[in-house]
């Protein structure tokens, strides 16, 4: 035979490996304008949240003599019903609302993601018990259930975090279990089991890296939902308690000002500001998540 066969000559394109930062940077350069907008907005929110005491002109709970003061150089967005500076509270609100939402989302993913993986790998009675328990929890309307639990356990920040995390972890559990199921049946997972690997290794090293993209996308969406739930609960009065500034309760406290819009447009806008802050962040996060989803779902060749 004149042509000898060599394994090295087999086709298979080898791309030059680039460093992680290089790859991230090239991806970023290709990101659409919406994703850039989203990332910049999120970055601003984070900076404001972290450096709130330096940016805010007044303290979070500092009371000024004049309640419902109009917009002025001293009080950029006026003062609220007991004379606290609205602008300062908006800035501190970023810190509280985002911080608590972030913490809650992480907790929800630890609980839901962990149990979802275990259920997908185990696939026996444990999976049945966990899945049915989740079904029961999901059957109860989340907001009403949260209201009930909060009135039982009291509206401390910690009970708020734990209760919302627990309720949201049911959704994370379902997603994690569903995507992990597709990976569990792959031969490489069986190969790891045949090797004698324990549950922890199979979860962390074999399955988790393969389901990370949908989980990261879900993290972004879940963060928005948690954020909105907290705002809603605060609006209803059982969320973050005064004097801690929070966008949801700020909307409620200043809601009556909307009626004054016909006399003073600026005053009417005051309760809209925290609502707009919520909306803007939600949209920004969704833009970034959308971009990430398109990028990782393998659809880019179709573009």
């Amino acid at each position, binding site marked *: 035979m004149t*042509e000898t066969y060599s*394994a090295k000559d087999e086709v*298979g*394109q080898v791309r030059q490996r680039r460093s992680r930062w290089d790859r991230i940077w090239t991806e970023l350069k290709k990101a659409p304008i919406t994703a850039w907008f989203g990332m910049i907005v999120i970055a601003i929110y984070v900076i404001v949240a972290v450096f709130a005491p330096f940016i805010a002109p007044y303290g979070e709970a500092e009371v000024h003599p004049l309640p419902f003061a109009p917009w002025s150089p001293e009080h950029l967005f006026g003062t609220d019903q007991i004379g606290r500076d609205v602008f300062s509270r908006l800035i501190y609100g970023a810190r509280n609302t985002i911080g608590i939402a972030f913490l809650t989302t992480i907790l929800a993913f630890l609980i839901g993601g962990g149990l979802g993986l275990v259920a997908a790998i185990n696939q026996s009675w444990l999976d049945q018990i966990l899945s049915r328990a989740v079904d029961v929890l999901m059957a109860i309307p989340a907001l009403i259930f949260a209201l009930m639990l909060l009135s039982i356990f009291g509206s401390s920040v910690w009970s708020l975090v734990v209760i919302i995390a627990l309720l949201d972890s049911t959704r994370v559990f379902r997603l994690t279990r569903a995507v992990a199921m597709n990976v569990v049946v792959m031969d490489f997972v*069986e190969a790891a*089991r*045949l*090797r004698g690997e324990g549950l922890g290794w199979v979860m962390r090293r074999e399955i988790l890296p393969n389901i990370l993209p949908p989980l990261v996308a879900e993290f972004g969406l879940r963060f928005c939902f948690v954020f909105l739930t907290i705002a809603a609960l605060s609006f209803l009065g059982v969320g973050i308690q005064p004097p801690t500034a929070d966008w949801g309760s700020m909307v409620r406290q200043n809601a009556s000002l909307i009626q004054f819009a016909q006399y003073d447009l600026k005053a009417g806008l005051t309760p809209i500001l925290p609502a707009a802050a919520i909306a803007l962040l939600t949209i920004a996060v969704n833009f970034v998540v959308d971009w990430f989803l398109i990028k990782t779902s393998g659809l880019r060749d179709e573009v």
Partner: protein
Amino acid sequence: MSDPLLHIKDIHIDGFSDERWHKIIKGVDLTLHRGQVLGLIGESGAGKSTLGLAAMGFARPGCRLTRGGIWFDGEDLMQASESRKQTLRGARIAYVAQSAAAAFNPAHRLIDQTIEATLRHGLRPGDDAAEDAKALYAAMDLPDPETIGLRYPHQVSGGQLQRAMTAMAMSARPDLIIFDEPTTALDVTTQVNVLAAMKDAVDRFNTAAIYITHDLAVVAQMADRIKVLRHGEEVEEADTRDMLTNPKHPYTRSLWAVRALHKPSLREDDTILSINNVTASYGTAPVLHDVSIRVPKGRTVAIVGESGSGKSTTARVITGLLPPLKGAVQFHGDTLPPALKDRSRDQLQQIQMIYQMADTAMNPRQRVSEIIGRPLDFYRGLKGKAQAQEVARLLELIELDDSFADRLPGELSGGQKQRICIARALAAEPELIICDEVTSALDQVVQEGILKLLLRLQDDLGVSYIFITHDIATVEAIADEIVVMHQGKVVEQGPKEDIFAPPHPAYTELLLSSVPTMDPDWLEKVRQT
């Protein structure tokens, strides 16, 4: 000679991947006359299917026809409008895909799908077409041709579905049918019937056909002429008999050579693994009945049989994934715990497994160094530098250099992936490796490389193999002993020469006689017996 039915001249096709256009077909000519069957062969990625689709004036998404001309019955398909081409497709040019299961709509009855194109093109009235479809089912040798059309795709077997699909293609009496690997997914025993039915149909209606495959023996039965493709270029084209007896190009000869691989079988009385009277079932469905198999030390036992015969289940019993209901697996004379979780790490280390689909057998997020390195750490406690050195040594053993250590599975070709899987199994220093159809997803030339590697490793390391396969050529190439399985039972077991020599039990006879040979008259001979 009359005008050709299909004439393709200097066709160029590009495909889009990795964010740029690559040339897939680089200037191929093709001429096909009425009633003629042309075989297109080549390894995967050679551009066979792309060229086949181009004959319909079609480029799949992500591909584009860049240059050249396609004339079908004198009409230029490169210039024809999309709607004009649509009136040709299904009516005058038909296509039979590799996976009939994926090509049929599971929600509609077979007969409705069979005559759909005929009705859409308004070629004949519905009742007439339905009667004709029944006649075609009969011609395709399908059981109950009157009523089988009323079934849904999941209610017939894979071989029957493939024949129904050929009937679907025939329904409009096209001038040209493109067969794209129509029997690749079928068992050998089923393949014979499907091939015979397709050949009959093509002969009867004097249909021209392009038959795409990578199996030389199959194309030898079907085609009048054979065209060999490689890397999007024509290697050579000749009449089937000329091509088989006198291949000119070295590449064609290398394709021929694979089937000639033969290993003389050696006897060995020392037993490493024995399966004793094992009965196993999935839930309540029994799969294995009283199976006993002996594996001699340092030798290869091939388990052959069609799909559903219990070959892979036997492997699952050995590895402990499926504890048997009755019977036991003994390793070096000691009974292994039936369930995986009760086995010790030493016991697990001794038996390793290599899978059919190397794609799914490796974690796509781990680099080669981690894939091979993990068993080194897990079983042998090698870490850091010692591990890296051992990975390099193993890569050398499987004929790859250590630059592969840094790659992800997605950056490897099919053959390279399977080699990495072999290295992962070797990393455990096992005494027995179970190979589950390890070569059936690979091209013939690559298959040869893998088989030779496995043979060399056996010589060097004295490892024993259990080789699960349905391909008799592979058995010929690698086995010392053969176990023939059918419907969960062992039909026959013994040294290779004894099994291959007559007389055979009925099933072995059927299995051996179903394997196509390179003789173009083989199909005729088989049908007469």
